[in-house]
């Protein structure tokens, strides 16, 4: 593999940031661990979402389906299998479902795809409930010693893998193909790119990561039931955070997740009676004020800086 001159400092800088993130448990504050955990979870989900949706412009609302499958995998197998194995199984199930769904639906475009992915979470949830109802299976209890520090570190590790994957894809022929698909799918097909294969592969990556995240978080929720595991709001949160950051860059969702988590926290603690209302207003303001997300803001700033230097 060829690393260019710019790559080495960028990789070193990323490694340093991840290292710093992994030190958070040393602060010993459970409150900051909670916020860190939320940031890590949404960083993983939004970044993996943007790996697929960023270049292809296909908006997927299926995150909750994969996430819920992951938590259920742990709930089901928790008594009989080791936790690390369950995370891998969850990831495999997530990838397999994304593959099947992708093959069936990625020929759909635009709003049809959005609607289908939204329905997918509900479909998986109803299927799960149906199976539980047939078997008389009760809610699952995941009672463990796995605490938030372990969960947090696993999520940071997963984030590192997601960033590495994204970086590698960006440099590969696959990444190039995806950018062309995003610009004009017709052109891509005529250039001999197997568009279906490229899209399905990336959709599988985001499904895999979301399922693994759900599996990792299962011990935190302790009690697994369909209405909680497949909560549709998760899918929307992921999309909003990624869009707030800017899905066009690998680090884009991250700069959306961090301010959004603090905003969410501030709203939840300051407006306990109007949380949902204030959040809705915040969404509107974000969409109007920052149509290209924080990435757009940062890049405009850079351009202005450069322009000024040019005149000087």
């Amino acid at each position, binding site marked *: 593999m060829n690393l260019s001159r710019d790559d080495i400092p960028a990789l070193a800088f990323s490694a340093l940031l991840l290292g710093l993130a992994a030190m958070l448990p040393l602060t010993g504050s459970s*409150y900051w661990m909670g916020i860190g955990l939320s940031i890590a979870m949404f960083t993983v989900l939004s970044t993996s979402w943007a790996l697929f949706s960023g270049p292809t412009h296909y908006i997927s609302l299926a995150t909750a389906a994969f996430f819920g499958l992951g938590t259920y995998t742990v709930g089901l197998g928790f008594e009989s299998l080791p936790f690390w194995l369950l995370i891998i199984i969850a990831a495999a199930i997530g990838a397999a479902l994304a593959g099947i769904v992708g093959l069936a639906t990625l020929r759909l475009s635009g709003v049809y795809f959005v609607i289908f992915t939204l329905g997918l979470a509900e479909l998986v949830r109803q299927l799960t409930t149906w199976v539980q109802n047939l078997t*008389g299976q*009760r*809610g699952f209890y995941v009672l463990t010693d796995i605490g938030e520090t372990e969960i947090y570190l696993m999520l940071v590790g997963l984030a590192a893998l997601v960033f590495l994957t994204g970086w590698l894809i960006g440099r590969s022929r696959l990444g190039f193909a995806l950018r062309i698909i995003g610009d004009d799918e017709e052109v891509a097909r005529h250039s001999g790119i197997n568009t279906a294969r490229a899209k399905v592969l990336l959709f599988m990556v985001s499904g895999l990561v979301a399922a693994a995240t759900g599996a990792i978080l299962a011990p935190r929720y302790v009690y697994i*039931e369909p*209405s909680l595991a497949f*909560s549709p709001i998760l899918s929307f949160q992921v999309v909003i955070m990624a869009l707030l950051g800017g899905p066009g860059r690998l680090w884009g969702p991250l700069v959306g997740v961090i301010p959004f988590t603090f905003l969410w926290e501030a709203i939840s603690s300051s407006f306990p009676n109007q949380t949902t209302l204030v959040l809705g207003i915040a969404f509107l303001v974000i969409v109007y004020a920052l149509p290209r997300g924080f990435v757009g803001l940062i890049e405009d700033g850079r351009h202005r800086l450069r322009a000024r230097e040019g005149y000087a």
Partner: protein
Amino acid sequence: MKRRSVLRLGAAALAAPAIIPGRAFANDPIRIGAVAPKTGPLAGGAAVSHWPNIALWSSQVNERGGLNVGGTMRPVEIIEYDDQTNPGETIRAVERLANQDNVDFILAPYGTGLNIAAAPLMDRFGYPQITSTCITDQVVDLSGQFSNMFFLLGGATGLAEGIVSVLAGMRDAGQIGGNVAMVNVADAFGIELAAAGRPALEAAGFNLVYDSSYPLGTQDLSPVMRGAKDAAPDAFIGFSYPPDTFGLTEQAQIEELEVGAFYTAVGASFPAYAGRFGPAVNNILGAGGVNATSEAFQAYAAAHTEVAGQAPDFWASAMMYASLQILEAAIETVGADREAVSAHLKETTFDTVNGPVTFDEHNNNPEYWTVGQWQDGLFRGVASTGREGAVDAVVKDGWT
């Protein structure tokens, strides 16, 4: 703010010290955190059974000057958060209450899933968690893992066996026959109750002539009710949630389901249920119950209506209030020391609106109401696992 309300506030501020002379304002309040749904799927239930009790209790305590902690009267200050019916938010709110707000106590959240999600953190920070809406058959495992978690409302098996025993009693008295139609909402709680109800019905010698389920959120329940009616049952059991509790009852009325016993689960004890169906509600059976004619409950219901502007329900409301009474008594006895309060909870009998409560070795309240029945405008307990004041179940006669 309008000028008039500013003036009124100012006047109130001036008048307050005069009204309550001798009240020690310098005393630190006891800070109590509360997290439960104000939005999301469980917000409706929490607005009936959970939040009004917190408002009632805190106003009652502060009206009499506060909690007596070691001779000092300390008012209570409630810090509320909305968890949006999302366990992740419940967890975050508990972290915020424990670490940022540094509250002295945290009230147990609302509902089974949200309570269990909060349990690991409540346990780690050492907060006693006196649950009043956490219905689970896993009490032994949960209290084994979280030694400060307490359970008031009972388990699914107890509730399901309760209605079966009531039906058996009516059958043995020759009031109804042995054919039962059972339906359940295909969601966690409905599934649990149905799974416990099937073997109990069989063991009691009932003939299950119709056994079906419907997904949560089903709007049209007429096929379910028609199916049940075609099986010509003597008794109908619906292990249902609030929206479909209302839906099933409405369909039974439309189809004129002729049964001697009609039971729906969660929501049948809500005053709004009686309000919706009027006289037709008479002799409907439902999950839960209270000793509705007892002096303690009557006084509680009157105070609840006055402070919250709405009547309490006839099941979880009173249990939620009981959990606050228990917390209050424990703090007044051993002080605002969480560890001491937890220890005290395990060894004392508490006097509550539901009668005396003693937790067993698994932090469980073994004596709870399982079945109630609407009789002359009150939802009265007809079966329990050891509560006083049960009345006999009455045969349902028609829908008018």
